[in-house]
């Protein structure tokens, strides 16, 4: 088991818990899709797993080691985190941004090997032509690929993706998802992806975790979790379900009252 989360709890103030008793497991090369309405705790879960936020209760084991015993730099060589959007204020080229992924391996100056690794990754994602462009000049889809490249140069075992497809057009959504799927398959990386688009989740995730108000509401194969009853109870939306190559395809119909 690559990742094991036990009884994870997180809150900013004890009266308003954000995550409640989360338990989950993740195998090698597995892609877990985390779905749920806004504020369900998806992003917080990812941040706790990467120790960007410190859990109040519970343990997170990575390859059998408690992540609290792993120092931040070593953790960075095991877990790659891909934020929803960048917050780069000052100019930075794509090359230099991706080079930051080598931070766990570099002391003061980057070496030839680090630069090779960056080139390799840019090539893998087919974005070499962007190498010397400023990241702030790129489109959302291109930026998302750059962040994925940065995470991959960390040579991680686990990728955490926070809404990788929000703000992307349908072509970039597919490109990014195919890319994630490919690196998972080729490099044996496991991934957890918080995602709003239920159809993308159904299509690409091996397993789905459905969250509601900080708790896990349902978990399992896409076809079993993404059913009309669960979606109505969690999102308050009535849907029509179609079957597309063995995976559910969801058409939202109307917002309904919670029951």
């Amino acid at each position, binding site marked *: 088991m690559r990742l094991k989360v036990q009884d994870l709890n997180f809150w900013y103030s004890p009266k308003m818990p954000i995550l409640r008793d989360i338990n989950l497991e993740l195998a090698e090369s597995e892609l877990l899709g985390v779905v749920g309405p806004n504020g369900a705790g998806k992003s917080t879960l990812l*941040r706790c797993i*990467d*120790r*960007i936020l410190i859990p109040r209760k519970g343990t997170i084991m990575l390859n059998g080691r408690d992540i609290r015993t792993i120092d*931040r*730099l*070593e*953790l*960075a*060589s095991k*877990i*790659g*985190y891909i*934020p929803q959007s*960048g*917050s*780069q*204020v*000052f*100019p*930075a*080229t794509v*090359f*230099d*941004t991706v080079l*930051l*992924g080598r*931070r*766990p391996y*570099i002391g*003061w*100056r*980057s070496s030839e090997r680090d*630069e090779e690794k960056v*080139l390799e990754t*840019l*090539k893998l994602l087919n974005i*070499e*032509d962007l*190498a*010397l462009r*400023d990241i*702030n*000049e790129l489109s959302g889809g291109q930026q998302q690929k750059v*962040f994925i490249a*940065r995470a991959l140069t*960390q040579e991680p075992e686990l990728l*955490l993706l926070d809404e990788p497809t929000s703000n992307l057009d349908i072509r970039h959504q597919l490109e990014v998802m195919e890319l994630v799927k490919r690196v998972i398959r080729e490099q044996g990386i496991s991934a957890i992806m918080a995602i709003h688009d239920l159809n993308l989740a159904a299509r690409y995730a091996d397993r789905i975790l459905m969250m509601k108000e900080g708790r896990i509401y349902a978990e399992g194969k896409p076809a079993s979790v993404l059913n009309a009853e669960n979606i109505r109870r969690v999102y308050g939306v009535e849907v029509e379900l179609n079957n597309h190559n063995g995976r559910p395809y969801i058409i939202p119909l109307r917002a309904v009252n919670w029951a």
Partner: protein
Amino acid sequence: MVISGTEDLKSQYKRFIGRKILFILVTIAFTFAIAGIAALVGSYYPPISFVEVYTIIWQVIPKIVNNHGYIAAHGIDAFFREYLTGKEFVIWELRLPRIILGVFAGMGLAIAGTAMQGILRNPLASPFTLGISAGAGFGATLALIPGIALVGGEYFVIGNAFIFAMVPSFVIIGLSRYRRATPETMILAGIAMFYMFEGMTTLLRFSAIPEDEAEVFHWLVGTLGKASWANIIPVSAIVAICILPLIWKSWDLNVLGAGDEAAKSLGVNVERIRVYILLIASLLTAGIICFTGIIGFIGLVAPHICRMVIGGDNRFLIPASGFFGAALLLSADTLARTIVAMVLPVGAVTYFLGGPLFLYLILKRRREFW
């Protein structure tokens, strides 16, 4: 721009790095050239030529080395009076200290500004917005008007300015124990400190007698006029000691630029490095302005101009803006000494130069922040 093949991209990247190194070399050359020009300016007659300046600087060094015993016994100023010719004395005793102070002050202020903008990811961050200058101003005023000083003796204005310049950083760091040390919290706290110190300074000046008030005024505008060999030593030591760790951590500064969450996931202890760099940058600023008074704009403008030319990579930006700041401050000071018969305070000149220059840059910028 189409790039084909990895080899091409590699050589392109090498050239990209090469351009940054070239820019740093140009700023170094510029600093030396302006230092030479600055040494020409003065009322000594007959005027000393450009070549002569460098010759004199070069020739006196062996004299210093050979007579280090005398210097140790009687001090450097007495040595210059006894052993040097008229021209040598003018250069070494009167002009060189001012130039060296200008170089170190410009370099230190620019690098402190670069580091502050880097950790706070904010283009407006500078010793001013963090309240450091206002703290120093209040400390000096407190020493000059009611004569309340935390350090006694000859250095009491300097010591007071230094101590109060460090207060805002300690307050900001203290606050960050209760609220998370986000850039926004730090900047807001810095601005609060700025207003508090400004207010207290105004109150003190309001009740001051005209003589004291004049002294305060001179201190607050900032000048290199108080340069001497005695105060170059502490300034250069502080600048050297503070710059090294900032260069050492320039890679972490780059990582911070990607945002707090990304930086954490890349292995950087964000809160700790932010406090650590804030402390060093404050020390650097305080160590300079307690000797020079408040010289504004260098810390804000130098990093911006260099960022426009070579981009935001702090590994190159820190040395580049350091030398650019040195050249900028020296130019401003030389200008201040030449445009009118009396010597203007360089602090005022940097505002006059910096303001329009900055407006021009804002108009010309390509993107949001270069």
